[in-house]
């Protein structure tokens, strides 16, 4: 059994438990069939990114649904690979002229080469009852050698997870990249349309949701009919800290999403909001009015070792950690309009970073990048800019298509999630590459706000 397969079985079990609300025992993984481990990587022509084709998977056995799954697996794998942009994917609607292989050993490599493919990702799927077995192989089209071979098996309840796992495997082995295919987003949504008890106004509540990074498998985390906003993943991916008004005022709660339990680290001291886990998961930076106005604090995850980082009568809010955990960037209006500032996690070396008309929601990229994305007021709306910490340069990645706010980095730093009204009045979550290209819509139901991206698997 390879580590990959073992990891997958664990994930499938966890996912089943979340979906059904009860643990299911997945079928034991099959022993590995692949003849050899990967040693070589796919290459493109003269330094260009490798061109890769992903035809529909072959049906190796199953029921009437299996052909649909075979098509789905290829499409999801294709979408995942396209989004990371490490490879040049050959559009799937151009494969029609190429004969469908009857087995993985009979691929028409000459024809794929004519189409310009450097690599060919071929797979099979075999469905048996509630279980599924998926094989994936990456061939070098020129040499016809297999560069990667994997087999995955488990519950058939979420076939997309198999494709995502394959995409992550391809990126890890072929591009030395931790892909985001199995990551999730958490965000706040008013889609349930519940209303809080109020005396005069209609007050729509918001609950915390999670979804796969591509928007599938959306699930509700909180059920308390109050405002639940500003979710933030723990670095182990097992907990979400957020701001909830469940006690009538903003306070920080941590939901352990796979256990269904909750922690309240602030112990009822003051009002607290906008929690952000440190990169090592041991500390939480947050905003609190406990000393009279909005200031930045850091506490251990259990609420101990409280440290105040700012002391100023102006507003200090919205902290985010540097990749090393040594610094915290935040928003302050101490010089007038809100700007992005940075301070050491020891409270020393305060300095201002931006000179915008109005800047908020700094979010520091993970390593190896050292950049801070933030929302900036551009006219009557907001756009997303990125500040390079090393040289102070700033670039803009959205340009007035609706408002664009609350950016959040993907765990590999190659993508951003953000809220935008670009498709209409409703606020929705979108993801894009770090250059602002390849924008994909993640939510469509209700209004959705303040995304945060889970760690990689």
């Amino acid at each position, binding site marked *: 059994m390879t580590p990959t397969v073992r990891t997958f079985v664990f994930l499938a079990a966890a996912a089943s438990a979340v979906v059904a609300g009860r643990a299911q025992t997945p079928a034991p993984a099959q022993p590995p069939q692949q003849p050899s481990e990967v040693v070589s990587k796919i290459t493109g022509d003269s330094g260009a990114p490798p061109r890769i084709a992903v035809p529909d998977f072959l049906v190796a056995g199953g029921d009437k649904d299996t052909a649909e799954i075979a098509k789905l697996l290829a499409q999801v794998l294709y979408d995942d690979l396209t989004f990371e942009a490490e490879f040049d994917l050959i559009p799937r609607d151009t494969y029609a002229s190429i004969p469908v292989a009857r087995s993985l050993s009979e691929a028409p490599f000459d024809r794929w080469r004519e189409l310009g493919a450097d690599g060919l990702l071929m797979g099979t799927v075999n469905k048996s009852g509630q279980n599924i077995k998926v094989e994936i192989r990456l061939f070098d089209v020129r040499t016809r050698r297999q560069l990667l071979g994997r087999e995955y098996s488990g519950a058939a309840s979420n076939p997309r997870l198999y494709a995502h796992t394959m995409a992550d495997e391809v990126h890890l082995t072929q591009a030395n990249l931790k892909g985001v295919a199995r990551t999730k987003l958490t965000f706040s949504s008013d889609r349930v349309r519940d209303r809080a008890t109020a005396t005069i106004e209609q007050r729509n509540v918001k609950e915390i949701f999670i979804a796969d990074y591509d928007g599938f498998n959306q699930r509700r985390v909180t059920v308390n009919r109050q405002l639940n906003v500003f979710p933030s993943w723990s670095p182990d991916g097992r907990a979400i800290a957020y701001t909830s008004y469940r006690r009538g*005022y903003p306070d920080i709660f941590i939901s352990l999403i796979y256990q269904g339990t909750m922690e309240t680290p602030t112990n009822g001291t003051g*009002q607290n909001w906008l929690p952000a886990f440190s990169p090592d998961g041991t500390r939480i930076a947050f905003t609190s009015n406990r000393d009279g*106005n909005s200031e930045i604090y850091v506490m251990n995850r259990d609420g101990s070792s409280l440290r105040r980082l700012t002391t100023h009568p102006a507003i200090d809010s919205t902290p985010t950690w540097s990749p090393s955990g040594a610094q915290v960037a935040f928003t302050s209006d101490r010089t007038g309009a809100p700007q992005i500032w940075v301070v050491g996690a020891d409270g020393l070396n305060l300095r201002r970073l931006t000179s915008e008309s109005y800047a908020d929601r700094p979010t520091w990229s993970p390593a190896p990048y050292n950049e801070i994305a933030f929302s900036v007021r551009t006219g009557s709306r907001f756009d997303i800019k990125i500040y390079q910490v090393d040289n102070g340069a700033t670039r803009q990645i959205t340009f007035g298509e609706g408002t664009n706010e609350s950016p959040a980095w993907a765990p590999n730093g190659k993508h951003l999630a953000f809220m935008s009204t670009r498709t209409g009045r409703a606020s929705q979550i979108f993801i894009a590459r770090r250059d602002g290209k390849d924008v994909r819509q993640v939510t469509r139901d209700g209004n959705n*706000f*303040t995304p945060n991206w889970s760690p990689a698997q």
Partner: protein
Amino acid sequence: MQRMRTWTTMVAVTMMAVAGASCSKKTPPVVRPAPPPAATADAGMGSTPAPPAPPPPVRDEPVSVALAPPDPAIGSKNLDDLNRESPLAPVFFALDSYELSADARTQLQGSAQVLKTNATWQVTVEGHCDERGTAEYNLSLGERRALSAKAYLVSLGVAADRLRTVSYGKEFPFDPGHDDAAWAKNRRAHFVITAK
């Protein structure tokens, strides 16, 4: 329920009066509640031993009636009705500002009077913003607005521990519109009476 308790109290008072009158060996009136026993004794013969001390008041003795607020219409309302009619009108702010305007101060002076008159009321001061700021910054801006209103009320003599603040940022607009008129209504400190 309230009426029933009052009736029970009246019956109890009547019975006690009857008992007291019996002790003083007077023939009590029977058709209406008797005057208090002590008064009966004072009016009677000096040689008659003093009647026993009146029994302690029953639990529902309507003491609170004497402390009813000067405006009985407000006092009789439940919290929902009270808040719906809003004796503490909201105050409004300029864009990105938490400074109280002259109008807002005048408004709060009136609210301070209402709060002094109704000295038992507990109030939550909610800070709200319009939709044009970010959700994150607006949470702090709304807090500043609530604190501005509270601080002024306290300076006018309202006890600080009667005023709780909470910011909702731009989460609960009063007017769902997207124009200047709606935004002006949404940049506000809003008062909710939570106990009276």
